[in-house]
């Protein structure tokens, strides 16, 4: 294998269409006879659904049909209404909490689908929404995990409790360790409710070919094969009768591409009326229908030696799950207690994580699930410990970072899923050192707490690990085209991260051909490889890239076999040189082998752990509560960077999402479960002027031993440590007041309140 393209900052091939407006996103599709779906959603947070009367809507010109739960009579489900099953952690305990594809009997959050209008245009469909009469008998809403824990109003009467599960993260004997500990500190902290808002709202277009018994679903993303399995069972078709098509996808971040109610409702509608149906989520819907994430409260206690050596961590995390357990809804709540220790050596660990059902939009993963939260908690604790024990906070971290000889270091195990995990490789001190050097910490840290021109300067530091490369498997197929170029087919999906370019780089090097010979990279659709797993957990390069290597090896073996016969030479002598296949002095154009194809796979159960450090220099205008970033440095070791340009894009892009969560973004509800942030003027995303001074440095010092590329997932490191780093910087800036941020986001109002509370203490 050559190393010509891997490691080079190759400009992306995707860009050529995106920059000229030639991408094809799902709303860009149009087919004859198309009907447009519009969804009536509950405006009540909790209540009994008594009746839905669509007769008024059906009178409107252009309204073709209105679908409600009554139209669903699947024999596989007791109510006739299909249920969206959990894809990850599908425990029997969660089953009562899984979401029906449409409300029947009860509504449990504002935004829950009640009816689907099929109309000649979206506008007409929306006109019709106003004419559907819905009777809901309101019930007391559960709007916080604290309210949920009282069980006074329960969402699911069948279980009688709002707690769907408690995960237990365990390692060693924490209680015994605490008894002996010379120093402990206990803190309650909280993270806000965010979500993986994609700039392109979701969309589904379904076409039902009744003659050939074929259902085609466009708009797939992230996990098309898994979603096909779910849909096939729900809709009563064999998987082979369903094709999921991935178009250009306007962002993923963990949220897009999971199986949502609409992923059943739209195909069902198309079959119901035997017409193609398209649904495009609008932004208001997106804010209340796409998976929420992050809202946790923690009560954590840390035990240390007097020299700052961490002995143990124990406590509880409470996650506000929203109204249903969605496909990957348990991931964050499991990760937070398990990975809260981050890159630090914690011998004894006992954290319980309670999952509380509330009358809010259900949660799923958002980039760095549970890890953003856990890192915030741990990094805040460490700064408080450092102050209590009078140890320099950098020195405290040094003493506790997992050493480079300690890998694989065993992390806590999460029960009841028996989720074991361990680090793979790395020198965590080295990225800390590099970050401090690039940041000029020795000088800049002297500004901490100083008031200059009316603003307090603060310095924060956070260290992180980022889990990536989830198994169990990924697939890739290479095929010779008629013109002698090669196409790569992938089982993973694109969510905009540039996989077409990256897989072309890997394939070109694996085949030792110029990158231009890799004509196309196709991905994300069910028809192109036998099986695929998708784009999540920063796995595309680790798993998909390694699958390309395997496919390339098999491809060359097949080519040698075929060419050996044609050329009459030993297989070992066959070579591929740009577009010609040679052996024993004779060559043939590769196009003579058009159709030759080889599928490869990569299997792996071990995770990769990229790692690094964030450092922030901020100012705080204490009278406004306004935070500005003067300088922010991320150093992340990714094992091996296939394309440094896109790795940087991942780091800075995820960092800004993390900063959004640290200071801006918060999905809010009132005590009645009414959703208060239904527009982009309410849910505040970072803009170009909010965080202008960000720098990142990507290192490749410690390749991962888990995969042949040595790569580590790198899509989440920027986000994981941002909350902890910013909160530590605020504490450092406002040290003269004794301010200790314990809640995110640090909005101006919240920061100002911290100062007032400190003054009044």
């Amino acid at each position, binding site marked *: 294998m050559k190393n010509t393209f891997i490691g080079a900052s190759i400009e992306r091939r995707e*860009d050529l269409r995106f920059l*000229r407006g030639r991408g*094809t996103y799902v709303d860009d599709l149009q087919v004859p006879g198309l009907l447009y779906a519009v969804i009536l959603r509950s405006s009540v947070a909790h209540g009994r659904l008594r009746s839905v009367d669509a007769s008024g809507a059906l009178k409107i010109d252009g309204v073709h049909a209105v679908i409600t739960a009554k139209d669903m009579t699947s024999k596989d489900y007791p109510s006739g209404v299909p249920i969206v099953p959990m894809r990850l952690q599908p425990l029997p305990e969660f089953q009562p909490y899984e979401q029906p594809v449409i409300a029947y009997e009860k509504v449990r959050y504002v935004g829950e689908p009640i009816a689907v209008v099929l109309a000649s245009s979206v506008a007409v469909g929306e006109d019709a929404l106003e004419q559907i009469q819905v009777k809901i008998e309101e019930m007391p809403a559960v709007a916080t995990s604290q309210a949920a824990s009282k069980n006074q109003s329960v969402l699911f009467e069948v279980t009688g409790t709002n707690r769907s599960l408690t995960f237990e993260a365990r390692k060693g004997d924490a209680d015994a360790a605490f008894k002996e500990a010379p120093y402990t500190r206990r803190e309650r902290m909280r993270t806000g409710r965010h979500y993986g808002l994609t700039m392109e709202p979701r969309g589904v277009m379904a076409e039902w070919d009744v003659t050939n018994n074929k259902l085609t679903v466009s708009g797939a993303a992230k996990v098309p094969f898994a979603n096909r399995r779910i849909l096939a069972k729900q809709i009563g078709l064999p998987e082979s009768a369903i094709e999921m098509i991935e178009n250009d996808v*306007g962002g993923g*971040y963990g949220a897009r591409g999971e199986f949502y109610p609409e992923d059943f409702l739209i195909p069902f509608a198309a079959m119901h009326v035997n017409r193609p149906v398209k649904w495009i989520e609008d932004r208001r819907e997106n804010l209340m229908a796409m998976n929420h994430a992050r809202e946790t409260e923690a009560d954590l206690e840390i035990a240390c030696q007097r020299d700052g050596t961490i002995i143990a961590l124990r406590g509880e995390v409470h996650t506000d799950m929203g109204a249903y357990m969605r496909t990957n809804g348990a991931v964050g709540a499991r990760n937070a207690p398990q990975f809260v220790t981050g890159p630090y050596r914690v011998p004894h660990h006992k954290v319980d994580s309670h999952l509380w059902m509330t009358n809010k939009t259900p949660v799923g993963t958002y980039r760095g699930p549970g890890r953003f939260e856990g890192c915030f908690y741990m990094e805040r604790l460490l700064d408080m410990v450092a102050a209590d024990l009078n140890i320099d906070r950098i020195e405290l971290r040094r003493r506790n970072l997992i050493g480079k000889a300690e890998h694989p270091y065993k992390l806590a195990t999460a029960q009841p899923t028996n989720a074991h995990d361990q680090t793979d490789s790395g020198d965590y001190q080295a990225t800390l050192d590099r970050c401090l050097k690039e940041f000029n910490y020795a000088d800049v840290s002297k500004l901490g707490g100083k008031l200059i021109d009316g603003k307090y300067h603060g310095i924060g530091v956070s260290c992180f690990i980022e889990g990536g490369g989830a198994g169990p498997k990924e697939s890739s197929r290479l095929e010779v085209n008629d013109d002698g170029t090669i196409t790569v087919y992938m089982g993973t999906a694109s969510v905009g991260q540039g996989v077409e370019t990256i897989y072309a780089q890997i394939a070109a090097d694996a085949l030792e051909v110029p990158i231009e010979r890799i004509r196309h990279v196709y991905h994300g659709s069910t028809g192109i490889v036998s099986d695929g797993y998708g784009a999540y957990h920063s796995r595309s390069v680790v798993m998909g890239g390694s699958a390309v290597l395997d496919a390339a090896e098999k491809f060359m073996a097949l080519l040698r076999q075929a060419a050996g016969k044609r050329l009459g030479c030993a297989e070992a002598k066959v070579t591929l040189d740009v577009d010609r296949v040679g052996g024993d002095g004779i060559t043939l154009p590769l196009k003579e082998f058009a159709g030759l194809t080889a599928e490869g796979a990569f299997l792996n159960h071990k995770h990769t752990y990229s790692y690094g450090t964030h450092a922030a220099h901020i100012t705080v205008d204490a009278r406004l509560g306004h935070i500005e970033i003067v300088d922010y440095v991320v150093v992340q070791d990714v094992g091996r960077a296939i394309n440094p340009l896109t790795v940087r894009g991942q780091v800075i892009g995820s960092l800004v999402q993390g900063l959004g969560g640290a200071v801006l973004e918060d999905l809010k509800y009132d005590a009645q479960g009414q959703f208060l942030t239904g527009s982009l003027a309410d849910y505040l995303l970072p803009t170009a002027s909010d965080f202008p001074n960000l720098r990142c440095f990507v290192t490749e010092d410690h390749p991962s031993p888990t995969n042949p590329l040595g790569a580590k997932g790198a899509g989440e490191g920027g986000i994981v440590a941002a909350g902890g780093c910013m909160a530590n910087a605020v504490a450092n800036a406002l040290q003269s007041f004794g301010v200790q941020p314990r809640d995110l986001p640090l909005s101006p109002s919240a920061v100002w309140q911290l100062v007032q509370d400190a003054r009044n203490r």
Partner: protein
Amino acid sequence: MTIKFEVNGKQVEVEVEPRLTLADCLRHHLRLTGTHVGCEHGVCGACTVLVDSRAVRSCLMLAVQADGAKVVTVEGLSRDEGLTPLQTSFRKHHALQCGFCTPGMITTAHALLSEEPDCDADRVREVLSGNLCRCTGYISIVEAVLDARAAYKKAVP
């Protein structure tokens, strides 16, 4: 209602309902799907197009209001198969990932650089703060726009 306007140098005549936004008219009636719709309430900037040379949010303008206007969409910026200097700069700086906000970024930046080829980084950030991007973190976008200024300076007599 029947409206006539110019899109990317071509005269078009379209029959529209008054309630149709310019964004939806471009996308669904004229099939110029490069203009994206990200919020439909005037915050995200993905739908930015040029109307009589000025950058506007096409979700906040009715199609009927474009009657008689000259509209340029992202498709109209690069006439041939190549990229414009601004587009080239976006590619070089990796100023896009999923590509959804990109047409709005390009049209907005093009309008800015056409009007103010000497704008500084702060001005670029100020102007682009009306266009949301969820992938890049904006740093590379600002770099790309600043780097493209030279091409616009030359174009100015």
